[in-house]
């Protein structure tokens, strides 16, 4: 980890829902162009933490935070939120294409950010669909509704939509949990290709998936006050072969609780 460039980081980051502390003083450095997986039991705050990186929690009434979240060293709280979300894209558990054509789904973000030229848009749409490894499957049907695709295709369309605005970071919250094993493998292979250009942070319940796709793994767990804590963070191969904390070992070996 010493030789890695940090893309995103948090320092003493805590998050509260009203008076309830959901995340407890988390320090982490997410390395650039790597896949970092967040694992932990339900309710440990890993999705909440992931959503902190592009300020998705701002939308929830009563949420307050302390500490800092940084992108490229800059405090995200001080960034324009639209610009931040252009740099930090998100893919959700259930594929959620807009009820628009495949083309318009991918062109949506770039148009929002001011790209109007039709041929430039066409180039960008093709590039994004190719990067998301779905171009060959949809290139003859770009005007077809995004909703008409299979679940796995829809999720890759959502990834294409996320990368069309050329983000630096892609956050993925259980991106394959609603997909069958073949579609899951496609997404995992795609993630491996995407990390050449993007930094990826993924929340997953599937430990084998974390082992297969990620370079680094962060294990989170709630404390006695039900606040999410970062227990251990390290290279995935280290976490899965020689975890340092016995709680990590108990969780990954299925003996937790």
């Amino acid at each position, binding site marked *: 980890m010493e030789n890695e460039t940090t893309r995103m980081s948090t320092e003493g980051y805590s998050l509260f829902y009203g008076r309830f502390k959901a995340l407890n003083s988390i320090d982490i450095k997410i390395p650039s162009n790597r896949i970092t997986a967040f694992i932990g039991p339900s309710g440990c705050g890993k999705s909440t933490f992931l959503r902190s990186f592009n300020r998705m929690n701002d939308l929830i009434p009563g949420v307050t935070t302390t500490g800092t979240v940084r992108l490229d060293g800059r405090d995200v709280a001080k960034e324009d939120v639209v610009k931040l979300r252009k740099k930090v894209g998100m893919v959700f558990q259930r594929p959620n294409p807009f009820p628009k054509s495949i083309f318009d789904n991918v062109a949506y973000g770039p148009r929002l950010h001011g790209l109007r030229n039709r041929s430039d848009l066409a180039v960008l749409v093709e590039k994004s669909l190719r990067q998301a490894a779905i171009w060959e499957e949809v290139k003859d049907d770009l005007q077809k509704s995004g909703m008409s695709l299979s679940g796995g295709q829809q999720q890759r369309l959502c990834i294409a939509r996320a990368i069309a605005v050329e983000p630096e970071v892609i956050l993925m919250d259980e991106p394959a949990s609603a997909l069958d094993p073949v579609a899951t493998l496609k997404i995992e292979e795609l993630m491996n290709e995407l990390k050449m250009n993007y930094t990826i942070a993924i929340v997953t319940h599937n430990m084998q998936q974390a082992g297969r796709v990620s370079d680094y793994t962060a294990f989170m767990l709630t404390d006695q006050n039900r606040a999410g804590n970062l227990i251990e963070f390290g290279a995935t191969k280290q976490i*899965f072969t020689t975890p340092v904390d016995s709680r990590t070992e108990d969780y990954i070996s299925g003996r937790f609780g």
Partner: protein
Amino acid sequence: MSRDSFDRELHEVKRNLFQVTGEVRKNLSASVRYLENRDMQGAAMIIESDEIINLRCIEIEEQCLNIIATQQPVATDLRLLFSILQISTEIERIGDYAKGIARISQKIGPGKLIKPLLSISRMEEIANEMLDDAIRAFTEDDEKAAREIPARDLQIDVLYNQVHRELLTFILEKPSNIEQTMMLDWVAHNIERVGDRVVNICERVIFTVTGVSVDLN
């Protein structure tokens, strides 16, 4: 949450490894005793029983592969299974060394030996004790013992050199002794190799406990 069936399977594969180790230890000590006593029937029994040992080791391998395929072990469980796979190979090879000694016994035949097997017997005792202690260290996750046991391999090496030199003098004294001398030298070599295999087992114990691969040879 506990993983009862997984833990049961792990326990069973460990138990099988200890059982087969016990059989190999028995064969190793019997192989030298039968050689000393010129017991041809005993030697034949060892050769026969080694087939069962080989089958047991294959069963252990299959059990490990099944557990890996169906239970996706990680961390300590994964290191343990990986070590069991490697240790069972070491045990199987130690069994082969005992069988090799029994074969040599048969080749020498029921006639008198050119010398008593004092140093060779001592080598076997040390190797057998080392094996017992190494397997115990494995059961008890005893890293300290695993680091101490290999020092005893030096005693085996010293005895082996002694036996080797002694056997050379037998050839010089009476060149017609050469065939049996070479065979007894091979017996000593087999036991010397057992010591090395036990050191490998100690390395696996340290790996299981710490996750670090070491070279103690």
